[in-house]
């Protein structure tokens, strides 16, 4: 129902559905918006809980450059991004 309204009104999905926005720059930087919180944080894996799913960022030497309620930036050597 909500999806249909959003599609008909052509609203941005991240606003209407609360969909996660993942912006990847090269393989060293990922910006994640619209999430609920962190489930796991190690230098090899960061798991972020979003409204519909979990986003796993895998890699080496991962670190969170900044972390606020709206946005986080992950830097490091990124190898995989998994939605589950």
């Amino acid at each position, binding site marked *: 129902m909500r999806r249909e309204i959003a599609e008909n009104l052509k609203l941005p999905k991240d606003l209407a559905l609360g969909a996660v926005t993942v912006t990847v720059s090269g393989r060293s930087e990922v910006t994640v918006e619209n999430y*609920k*919180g*962190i*489930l*796991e*944080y*190690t*230098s090899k894996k960061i798991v972020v809980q979003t409204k519909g799913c979990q986003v796993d960022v895998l890699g080496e030497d*991962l*670190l*969170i*450059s*900044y*972390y*606020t*309620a709206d946005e986080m930036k992950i830097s490091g050597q990124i190898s995989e991004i998994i939605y589950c």
Partner: protein
Amino acid sequence: MSGRFIRFLKGYVYIRIDSPLPERFLNLCAFHQILMWGLVPNGDFYEMYMSVQDFFRLREIVRKTKTKVTVLGHYGMPFFFQKYRSRKIFVISILVSFAFIYCLTLFIWQIQITGLIRHKPEEILSFLQEEEIRYGMRKSKVDCEAVESDIRERFPDIVWVGASLEGTNLHIQIKENVDSYDAQTEKEGTADLVADVSGTVVSMVTRTGTPMVAVGDQVEKGQVLVSGREERKDDAGTVTGYAEGYADGDVTVQTVINYRDAFPYVHKVKVYSKKKRYHLTLRLFQKEFALFNKKPKFALYDTDTVDRTIVLGKSFYLPISYELKTMREYFHETRQYSKEEAKQLANQKFRAFTEDLKKKGVEIIENSVKIVLKEKECVTSGSLVIQQPAGKAAPLSPLETNPPLEASE
């Protein structure tokens, strides 16, 4: 950049958290709008930066998540002041000096004028002074465009002016129109072209006026070459009157000049002893303070002067300058040129003389100058046949011929 500056102003800490539920701790922080940056997992711990304000809001979160927080470092202005709280005067003087330097940047401490050929910098400076543009004035009161147009208005031969403020320096770039200067200032009114040297005319081009001599004529210094008076004739060829103007033309005259230069082999040279004296004059806001101004006790000495304005970076001139005079003692010592040296020196002197002539537009046609090494002196003598431009403006000569017909009737 501004974010980092604000963090520095407010102060921030580098902390380590040791928690059984680190993710919960991070989520709670995010929920309470606590900004974290530089978050690094370090084995079982996590390390991060946080503002001091946010750090004091952690108490509740720490209690909920049973976290142990260790402060590893503290940075920023509040900690800087705390560190130096026992040295208040030191901190205050740093702040005062920053404020003082900032105040200095609001004024003009240097007026630089470039590109002048005919005009002198003093002329432009005194004009600027009349226009209330002076050393030490507020930068905000300088209207560069007005300065440009004022200078152009006052000096018509200046065709382009660029005024710009660079730091505390008012840079005025000027381009003069040299051609129009000649036409406007020198070629008005009436004048004859008279010879300024004696010799034989070898070439002649008359632009305005009546030629009074021809190629091959012998002319004397002061003789009229081109008259500014032109005859007006009627159809029958009778002179009816004269038009007076400014005679103009190029006349080249060939002449012979003698050159003689002699110098003895024995001569005096300066030998510097290692003794030096310094005079230092400090100038603050155009007021002079003489430091170390003792007169040297040397009989003979040379003075080198260095005058410098203190500049921070490229164009931040300060109202502080100094003049350093170095006085070096010397003695005269008698030496003798070898014949080879004397010949070289004579050659050098003669070359300088001919270079000078060339600069004046003189062409050397024949050269019979010889160097003779005599017993006690070196003599360079001989004659040079030269061709040189002759002709300078002089007041119109009085009419010698019969008065014009109109006047007689």
